[in-house]
């Protein structure tokens, strides 16, 4: 031990700082703000919204500071030194003599997501100031939004699974409240219920997975790291330690993955996400595109070692994560073609982008996936806010592209420009951010030898380009239709339309939105353009900052066991690690002398050739789709119009898509109804008739027995004719009539009988 301690002298002590040490403040601030909004929000001049915005700005500053200091920390580390996460832990609860902590676990991953969440939340809250002005539940909206940010931030920097679960569930709750924000409409509250319920189904997996990991890891972590089996750090190290029984960890990984399927809207639990668009647009852009829905992806990335070992990532053949990811990419992209509601198009595109992240993680492309979380957040949020801006200022709060949009590029230039930038980013056009992340994923998937999935990825890229072009065309080009043409066709179906403040500015036709809306759009579009350069592989090593800052180094480190107490144990490198150049045993073999926190992953070498191919595919998609849209929507070309009616096969396929593969039908009509109605009815019937029946039957039989005894003991049946009607059952049963057979003595009778039985049993037992 001290032998290593000596070598460890050579390692530079890692830099730290106030922001890193106090990162736990980041979620605390919004939490407090939430409480304040609830308590005093209504009395404040801006109805509590200022509290929300301020708190988000505060967390943004805090997380930016933390990010900066984390970069310092990484730079201060030696070339081959493991950059220890900044872990703090306080005792939270105890049970069975064990102490469980609550605390922060700050590493590259959490820094990235923290920053993204804080950033987008801030912008969205500013945007909402305008977008929801005059809403009937303005204060509630900001309260929920702030609580959401608190929950998500808490989950991101959680150092143990319990805190993680806490954040996870709080997000679910907020998504429930926000989707159902205009709960007067039944549809909205239904969607809210559906979202919460679907995600909750996935959460079974989370509960089970956490339990399994805890009980299988706890012993090992306690003695090797001095942390509980809930600690993320402990679990990661344990997973790579070669300890775990392969089946246990596999089941645990699958269970956890089910949770992420539910949360991240992966197939087959993706159906809640499009419905969630019933919520206000800022909610869709914050929760249901950029932050909350990536929680599932985050879970996989966070506990990557578990999945790496459990599902045998990088093994031959595809694994569960890749398969689900791949399926999701294609089916949701396909669904995006048949949507008329612009938000639903974006929703399905979100689902398929999440599919990309899953695919990346499943294929061992950890960094590109995380990087895709980062870039996707910006351009997708931008797209949603853009859609919101359109409906807010141009289309009377309608989101129907075919009926109420078209030709808007002239009236709202800023929205148009930002939209185009983000769309290109989403399609993955060089040099927009999406290119650097998405292309990396596809590239690495291929590089790790999963060619089928690489093709799926390319196919997905093609479809993405196509449906986004269609949406763009419908929205911004062609002739203005419906509302955007100025016809004040007020559509009732949209909850948003019902609130008054907007009815006024509906009167004058489409126009550009105000600064509070456009400024966030512009900021986001700038990032959608620029954020890709943080990890621009084409330009060589020096541009791959993300890789340097975020990716944990797969280096075996020696730990001096519990002495330091939870989370405090000093970590030093193995001298062997110095020369072993990226040939670390981590992930591939059992570390003999130390522990690993991350598996060793390869990175594909960037080749322009490959990039060119994917570019070509993307442009092909754009071009085809553009021509089709032009012919179909503007030229009304007779060969295309009504094609689906004429050609049976296409018609069926189209219908199949419109019906969303009948999955909703399966869930709601078949599963939910069978539980909610017949089964529960049956259970209740059982309760009322069997169990109570037994009780009443017992009463009845005593009655009959005693009748029999009575008739033989004593022949006087004078009044029994009268009494036979009122059986004891009845007296136990509908005891409604006021002059019902003697209560006092009835209780006496019961007492006596109980006593009698007791006495008898006692006598018999006590021989």
């Amino acid at each position, binding site marked *: 031990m001290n032998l290593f301690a000596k070598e460890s002298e050579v390692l530079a002590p890692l830099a730290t700082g106030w922001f890193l040490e106090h990162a736990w403040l980041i979620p605390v601030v919004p939490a407090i703000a939430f409480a304040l909004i609830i308590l005093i929000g209504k009395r404040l001049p801006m109805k509590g919204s200022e509290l929300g915005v301020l708190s988000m700005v505060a967390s943004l500053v805090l997380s930016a500071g933390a990010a900066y200091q984390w970069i310092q920390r990484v730079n201060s580390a030696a070339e081959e030194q493991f950059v220890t996460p900044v872990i703090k832990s306080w005792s939270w609860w105890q049970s069975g003599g064990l102490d469980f902590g609550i605390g922060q676990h700050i590493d590259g991953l959490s820094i990235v997501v923290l920053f993204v969440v804080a950033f987008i939340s801030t912008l969205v809250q500013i945007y909402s100031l305008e977008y929801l002005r005059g809403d009937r539940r303005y204060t509630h909206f900001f309260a929920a939004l702030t609580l959401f940010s608190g929950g998500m931030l808490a989950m991101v920097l959680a150092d143990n699974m319990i805190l993680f679960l806490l954040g996870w569930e709080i997000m679910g709750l907020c998504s429930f409240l926000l989707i159902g924000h205009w709960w007067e409409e039944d549809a909205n509250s239904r969607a809210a219920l559906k979202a919460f319920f679907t995600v909750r189904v996935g959460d079974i997996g989370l509960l089970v997975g956490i339990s399994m990991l805890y009980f299988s890891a706890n012993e090992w972590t306690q003695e090797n790291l001095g942390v509980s089996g809930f600690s993320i750090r402990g679990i990661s190290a344990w997973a790579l330690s070669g300890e775990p029984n392969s089946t246990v960890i596999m089941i645990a990984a699958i269970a956890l993955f089910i949770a992420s399927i539910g949360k991240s809207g992966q197939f087959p639990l993706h159906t809640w996400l499009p419905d969630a668009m019933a919520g206000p647009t800022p909610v869709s852009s914050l929760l249901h595109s950029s932050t909350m829905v990536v929680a599932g992806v985050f879970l996989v990335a966070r506990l990557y070692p578990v999945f790496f070992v459990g599902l045998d990532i990088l093994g031959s053949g595809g694994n569960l994560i890749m398969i689900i990811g791949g399926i999701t990419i294609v089916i949701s992209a396909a669904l995006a073609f048949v949507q008329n509601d612009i938000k639903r198009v974006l929703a399905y595109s979100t689902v398929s982008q999440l599919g990309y992240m899953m695919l990346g993680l499943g294929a061992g492309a950890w960094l590109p996936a995380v990087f895709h979380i980062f870039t996707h957040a910006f351009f997708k949020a931008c797209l949603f806010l853009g859609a919101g801006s359109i409906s807010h200022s141009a289309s009377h709060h309608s989101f129907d592209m075919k009926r109420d949009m078209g030709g808007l590029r002239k009236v709202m230039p800023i929205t148009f420009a930002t939209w185009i930038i983000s769309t290109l980013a989403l399609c993955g056009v060089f040099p927009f951010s999406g290119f650097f992340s998405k292309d990396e994923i596809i590239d690495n998937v291929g590089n790790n030898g999963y060619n089928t999935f690489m093709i799926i990825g390319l196919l997905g890229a093609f479809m993405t380009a196509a449906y986004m072009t269609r949406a763009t065309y419908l929205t911004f080009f062609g002739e203005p239709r419906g509302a955007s043409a100025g016809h004040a066709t007020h559509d009732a179906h949209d909850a948003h339309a019902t609130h008054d403040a907007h009815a006024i500015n509906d009167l004058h036709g489409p126009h550009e939105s105000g600064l509070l809306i456009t400024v966030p759009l512009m900021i986001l579009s700038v990032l959608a353009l620029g954020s890709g350069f943080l990890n621009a592989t084409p330009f060589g090593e020096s541009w791959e900052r993300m890789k340097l800052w975020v990716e944990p180094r797969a280096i075996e480190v020696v730990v001096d066991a519990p002495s330091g107490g939870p989370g405090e144990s000093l970590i030093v490198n193995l001298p062997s690690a110095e020369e072993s150049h990226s040939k670390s045993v981590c992930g591939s073999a059992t570390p003999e002398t130390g522990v690993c926190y991350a598996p060793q992953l390869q990175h594909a070498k960037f080749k322009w050739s490959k990039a060119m191919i994917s570019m070509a595919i993307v442009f092909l998609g754009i071009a085809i789709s553009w021509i089709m849209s032009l012919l179909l929507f503007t030229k009304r070309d007779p060969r295309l119009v009504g094609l689906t009616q004429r050609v049976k096969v296409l018609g069926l396929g189209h219908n199949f898509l419109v019906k969303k593969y009948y999955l909703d039908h399966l869930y709601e009509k078949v599963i939910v109804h069978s539980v909610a109605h017949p089964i529960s009815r049956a259970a209740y019937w059982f309760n009322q008739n069997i169990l109570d029946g037994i009780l009443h039957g017992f009463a009845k039989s005593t009655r009959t027995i005693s009748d029999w005894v009575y008739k033989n003991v004593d022949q006087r049946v004078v009044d029994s004719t009268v009494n036979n009607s009122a059986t004891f059952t009845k007296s136990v049963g509908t005891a409604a009539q006021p002059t019902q057979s*003697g209560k006092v003595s009835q209780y006496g009778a019961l007492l006596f009988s109980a006593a009698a039985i007791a006495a008898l049993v006692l006598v018999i037992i006590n021989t």
Partner: protein
Amino acid sequence: MYVNQFLFLASVLFCIGVYGVIARKNAVLILMSIELILNSVNINLLTFALRNGSTDGHTFALYIIAVAAAEVGVGLGLVLLVYRNKKTISVDDLSEMRG
């Protein structure tokens, strides 16, 4: 003479008394049944007094008799009162706890 013959007699009386308490509706009759029970207890006491050659049993028997007297006095007083107010002494009609 066996100990049990007395004890059996006592238990038979006791059970009859219990039956009476349960089965009867008329307050006076319930009181009577209670008297039966008390007497069976007395028989027990005296039997054991004889068996153990102590006189405590007698004392208790006397006390019981006295208490029984008191109980009957009060009990019947109640019955009278109830009868005066409700014109009935069927305990069921006293069992309306509401109102």
